[in-house]
């Protein structure tokens, strides 16, 4: 695949091509007991092929809703979503998803879990197992290939979930707070793993998190969302060098980026506070 995008001239070239994801004027309204809730309000953004975009924002601002909609899991919606140039109505095999919970099939071994996608796309058992074994080696769980999910730790389960999503070689990988349920140490390791993995798979990644540090460490670009209704407040380009690891968090360039993000969030928080005060 020639979708590799780094912060070199290649990414400039990539950006000129058709975006991998185009979201325009996306609005989503839920019917709840207390009337209609506008979860997402006219959100628009593009993601270039191979780009790594993080969506960050407070709990309940609609991050998951946006991601599920791109995945084809949340219908109906208002606005337009194009993935690889084609509109999204339902889940597509070229779009992979990793959820906050691993959601591994408990009755399948690690290998069978990862082989599930290829099997569903019509690959033979041997082919599917070969794909699975490659991915198992990549996530470093060869010893656990025949283990059942309940015997794995949370971090290992989430690695399997990532490998399972990659087994169909998706052009777009959506990740919804995949490390949110992990402890801080495991989380840092998983972030480094993902960064290393990302250089090899070359998929376009949209990664949702409420952790601004995680967003900056991982992303080429951070979209900061605000709650009630969900909107995009600001886009922050992260021009930190790659290959990157979580140790980038002590560099001055990182800190100044983080300050920018926090300023935006604080201003929004204050505005929301004053508004609720006035009401």
């Amino acid at each position, binding site marked *: 695949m020639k979708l590799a995008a780094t912060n070199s001239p290649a990414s400039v070239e990539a950006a000129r091509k058709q975006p991998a994801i185009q979201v325009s004027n996306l609005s989503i309204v839920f019917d709840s007991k207390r009337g209609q809730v506008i979860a997402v309000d006219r959100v628009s953004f593009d993601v270039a092929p191979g780009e790594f975009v993080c969506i960050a924002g407070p709990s309940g601002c609609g991050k998951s809703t946006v991601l599920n909609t791109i*995945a084809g*899991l949340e219908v109906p919606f208002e606005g337009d979503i194009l993935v690889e140039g084609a509109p999204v109505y*339902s*889940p597509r*095999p070229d*779009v*992979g*998803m990793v*959820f906050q*919970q691993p*959601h*591994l*099939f*408990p*009755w*399948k071994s690690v290998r069978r879990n990862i082989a*599930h*996608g290829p099997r*569903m*796309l019509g690959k033979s058992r041997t082919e599917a197992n070969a794909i699975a074994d490659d991915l198992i080696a990549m996530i470093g769980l060869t010893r656990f290939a025949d283990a*059942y999910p*309940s015997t794995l730790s949370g971090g290992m389960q989430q690695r399997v*979930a990532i490998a*399972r*999503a990659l*087994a*169909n070689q998706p052009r777009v990988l959506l990740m919804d707070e995949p490390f949110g349920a992990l402890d801080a140490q495991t989380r840092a390791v998983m972030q480094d793993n993902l960064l290393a993995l990302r250089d090899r798979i070359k998929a376009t990644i949209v990664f949702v998190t409420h952790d601004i540090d995680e967003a900056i460490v991982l992303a080429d670009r951070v979209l900061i969302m605000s709650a009630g209704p969900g909107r995009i407040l600001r886009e922050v380009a992260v021009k930190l060098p790659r290959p990157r690891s979580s140790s980038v968090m002590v560099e001055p360039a990182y800190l100044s980026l983080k300050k920018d993000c926090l300023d935006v969030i604080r201003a929004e928080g204050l505005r929301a506070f004053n508004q609720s005060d006035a009401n």
Partner: protein
Amino acid sequence: MAMQDAASTRRATAIRTDGRARRPDLVRRRRLNVLVGALSLPLFVGLWELVSRSGTVNMVLFPPPTVVATAVLEWIRSGQFFGDLLASLFRVTTGFIVGGALGILFGILTGQFPVISSLLSPLFHILRPIPPIAFVPIVILWFGLSEAGKLFLVVWGVFFTVWLSTHIGVQKVDRGLIRAALMLGTPRRQMLQEIVLLGALPYIVVGLRTAVSISFYTLVAAELAGAFAGIVYRIEIAQQNLQTGQVMGGLAALGLMSFIADRLFAALAERLVWWR
């Protein structure tokens, strides 16, 4: 320094001897439990024998174990026992399999398809709490003393238990698993076999296990309603002839059957839900 060392050594020895003292104690207690457990039945049977023969109770109504054993041997020697056993086993297993299969089938249908659930669930929820034994009179009206009537009762008892647990199991399948499966390209029409059935399997197995004992309850009702062979039928005949020994032998046989069936199913259940 030296004093501190001595103190800590003393503490260490104290802990060590304490541990050493506690462990044999545990072993001894466990051995005692095994011994008492092994003595439980002989003790009970011996006491029963003594009480029966003491003259304080009517030996005809409360025969000692030796008399019960003789009655059972007689039962076996007459050749009736195996006929009775087979008749009862046939009713229980056929009823269990038919009722279980129907229960699983309808549980999947009502659990998976809201329209079918709206149609059938209210009816099932009204019929389910009626004890199967209450159907004996109408079953006699409908089926007479035929085998079909007996199967009907067992099937009836098993069906609702298995239906309800299957229905709940299907409903409780983790939505996250279904979303994950969708994202991996699982077609919706394959969702049942790929995810829903396996997700519901632990519930189905629990329902089936409960149904094992229910099938024995309903067997009793079915055979008391009138039969020509069967363990419970024989108990009833023996009762009419005041052969209390055989009555008790029949009860023991029924208990043993039910116990073995439950154990067999427990072993099977472990294999059915293989990922646990």
